[in-house]
C-alpha cells in the first residue's frame, strides 16, 4: 500500500465521522496546549527572576555580618557566638583585592523625612557613590552622591520618585532641603522609578552619605557590603579575597556570610526549572488521557468496522496493512491535535503576555518538541492493542454477520 493511499484512506475514515474526529482533536489539543502554556508560564517566571537579578547589578557579591551556622560544640562547654560587626574599615580593606572592581558599604535604617509640614517615614540607605553603578540605579533628575572619602560626608541626599512626589507634590524637589531626624540634607538627585529590587522599593527610599547615616542611626556597623567583581570569572576569586581579608581583620574568625548573585540565581533557576518540569508533567497526564480516549475510540472502531476489516482481508489486505491503517489514523489524529494544541497554546501565551507584559512568557524549545512527540507516542502506544485486534479478526466471522 502506498503512503498517499494510506493517508487518503485514513483521511476518508476521519472525514466520515466528523464529531468523533473533532472530539479526539479537542482532547489531544487541550493536552498539548496545556503543556505548552504551563511551560511558558514556568519559563516566563524563570526568565523574569533572572532578569530581576540582573537588574540588581552584574557580578554582584553581598557580604553580611555574622555567619549562619550551628555553634556550641561539646556539652558542658559553652562557646558563645559573638558576631563581630562589619565596619567601614573592613570595607575599605577590600580595596586590596584585584578581583573587585568596586564596592559600596550599606547602612539601612528607618527615618522620618520632613519638609515643611509634610513628613514621611521611609527606609534610609547610607552608602557611597559606588552604589549607583553596583545596583544599576538610574536618576531621573540631578546627580548621585558625590565621590570622596566615605568617612566624611556632605549634607546631601538622593530621594526616590515616590518620596519626591509625596513630599513636594508637583513642586521641584531638586535643591530643596529635607530634614531627617535632627539633620538637614539638600536634595541633589531624584531616582528614576525602577520598582522593587531585592526587598526595597527604590521609589520609596532616601539615600544619604554613609557617614551621615552612621551619625543619624548612631552606629558603626554596616548592614551589608555590596561588591562588584571585575568579571563573571572573577566572582569566585573575589569571594575568596573578601573572606580572607575580613578573616584577617577579625582575628582569624570567619564571621561573615558571602552571597554571590550567581549562587542565588542558580538556586532560583534550579527551583523554577524543577517547578516547570513538574507542572509540565502534570499537564502531560492530560495527553495520556487523550491517548486512552484514542484507544477507546479505536476499540469501538474495530467493532463497528468489523465487516469492513473482514472485507479488506478478503480483498487481500495483510495483517500489517490493517495495523498500518489504524496507526495512520491515530497518527493523523495526534498530528492534528498537536498542531491545534500548539496554536491554542501560542494563543494563550500571547494573551498572558498582553496581561502581564513584564514577564517574558515563552515556552522552552524542549516543551514545543516534547508535547507533540508525547501526543504522537501515546497515540501509537494506545493504538497498539486495537490495531492488533483488528489485524487478528477472522474474516469469515467478520463478514458473516450483517
Amino acid at each position: 500500500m502506498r503512503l498517499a493511499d494510506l493517508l487518503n484512506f485514513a483521511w476518508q475514515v476521519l472525514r466520515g465521522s466528523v464529531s468523533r474526529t473533532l472530539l479526539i482533536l479537542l482532547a489531544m489539543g487541550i493536552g498539548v496546549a496545556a503543556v505548552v502554556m504551563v511551560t511558558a508560564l514556568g519559563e516566563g517566571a524563570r526568565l523574569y527572576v533572572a532578569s530581576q537579578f540582573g537588574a540588581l547589578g552584574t557580578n554582584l557579591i553581598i557580604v553580611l555580618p555574622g555567619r549562619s551556622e550551628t555553634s556550641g560544640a561539646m556539652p558542658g562547654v559553652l562557646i558563645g557566638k559573638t558576631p563581630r560587626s562589619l565596619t567601614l574599615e573592613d570595607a575599605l580593606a577590600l580595596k586590596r583585592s584585584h578581583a573587585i572592581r568596586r564596592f559600596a558599604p550599606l547602612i539601612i535604617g528607618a527615618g522620618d523625612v520632613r519638609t515643611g509640614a509634610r513628613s514621611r517615614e521611609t527606609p534610609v540607605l547610607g552608602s557611597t557613590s559606588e552604589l549607583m553603578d553596583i545596583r544599576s540605579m538610574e536618576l531621573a533628575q540631578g546627580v548621585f552622591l558625590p565621590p570622596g572619602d566615605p568617612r566624611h560626608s556632605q549634607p546631601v541626599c538622593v530621594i526616590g520618585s515616590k518620596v519626591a512626589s509625596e513630599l513636594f507634590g508637583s513642586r521641584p524637589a531638586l535643591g530643596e532641603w529635607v530634614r531627617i531626624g535632627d539633620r538637614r540634607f539638600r536634595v541633589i538627585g531624584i531616582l528614576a522609578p525602577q520598582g522593587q529590587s531585592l526587598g526595597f522599593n527604590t521609589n520609596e527610599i532616601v539615600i544619604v552619605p554613609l557617614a551621615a547615616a552612621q551619625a543619624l542611626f548612631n552606629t558603626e556597623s554596616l548592614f551589608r557590603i555590596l561588591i562588584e567583581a571585575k568579571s563573571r570569572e572573577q566572582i569566585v576569586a573575589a569571594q575568596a579575597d573578601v573572606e580572607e581579608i575580613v578573616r584577617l581583620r577579625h582575628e582569624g574568625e570567619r564571621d561573615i556570610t558571602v552571597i554571590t548573585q550567581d549562587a542565588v540565581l542558580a538556586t532560583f533557576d534550579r527551583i523554577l526549572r524543577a517547578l516547570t518540569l513538574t507542572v509540565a508533567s502534570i499537564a502531560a497526564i492530560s495527553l495520556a488521557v487523550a491517548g486512552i480516549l484514542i484507544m477507546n475510540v479505536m476499540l469501538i472502531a474495530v467493532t463497528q468496522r468489523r465487516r469492513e476489516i473482514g472485507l479488506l482481508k478478503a480483498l487481500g489486505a495483510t495483517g500489517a496493512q490493517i495495523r498500518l491503517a489504524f496507526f495512520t489514523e491515530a497518527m493523523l489524529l495526534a498530528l492534528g491535535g498537536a498542531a491545534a494544541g500548539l496554536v491554542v497554546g501560542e494563543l494563550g501565551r500571547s494573551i498572558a503576555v498582553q496581561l502581564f507584559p513584564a514577564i517574558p512568557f515563552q515556552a522552552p524549545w524542549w516543551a514545543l518538541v516534547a508535547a507533540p512527540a508525547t501526543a504522537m507516542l501515546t497515540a501509537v502506544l494506545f493504538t497498539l492493542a486495537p490495531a492488533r485486534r483488528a489485524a487478528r479478526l477472522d474474516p469469515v466471522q467478520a463478514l458473516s454477520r450483517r
Partner: protein
Amino acid sequence: MIRLTGIARTFLVGGEEVHALRTVDLEIAHGEYLSIMGPSGSGKSTLLNIIGLLDRPDAGSYELDRKNVTALSDDELARVRREKIGFVFQFFHLVPRLTAVQNIELPMILAGIDPAERKPRLARLLAEYGLEERAGHRPDQLSGGQCQRVAIARAMSMGPTVILADEPTGNLDRHTGQEVLSVLERVHQNGGTLVIVTHDPEIGARATRRLRMLDGAVVGDDSG
C-alpha cells in the same frame, strides 16, 4: 485450476464439534462455471471460504494453479487472495463512506499499484459494468443491482483466476438478480472460472457444472 484433496473442516459450537466439511475431494478446471447448491448448513459457504483462502481446512490439501497453498502463512495467503481470487458477497460489502469508484479501486490500492496504472483500469471497469454515471456515488445512493455490479467490478479489478460468489442474488429482486447473474456469467464467457453458491435451483441450474452438498459432503456432481 483448483484441486482439493481430503478437505475437512470442523467447528466448535457450544462445546460440540460440528463437521462443516467431511473429506471433500474436488477439482475445478480453469474456465469452469460451477454452482454449489444445498440446504443451509450443508457446508457450501465453508467450502467457498476455503477455496477463497479466507478459511483454513483442518485436514487435506489445497492446490491452486499447481501450487500447494495449504501451508502458506497468513500474509502469503493474503497476497494469493489479492492476486488470484475475487469475492462477491450476498450483502455486497461495499465500504459505505467510499464512492463506487473508490470501492472498485480498493484491491488495487492494497496491492500497491501505481495510481497512473489504476486510472485506465478503473475507467475500463466502470465502462464494462455500466457504472460510469454512478462512479462518484456512495453505496447508499446506489440501487441493489448497482451495488452488486460495483462489487463484481471490484472483484475483477485485479484480474483474478477465479470469482467466488456467495448467494450473489440473495439480496436482490428476481429481475435484478437475473441481470446481476448475467453480468457474473460474462466472467465465464471471457474464459474465467466462476463458482456460485446458491440455494436457488433456478440459478444453480444455469451453471455448466452443478455440485450438490449435504451435511458437509458432496453428494452430487453433475456436468452437462
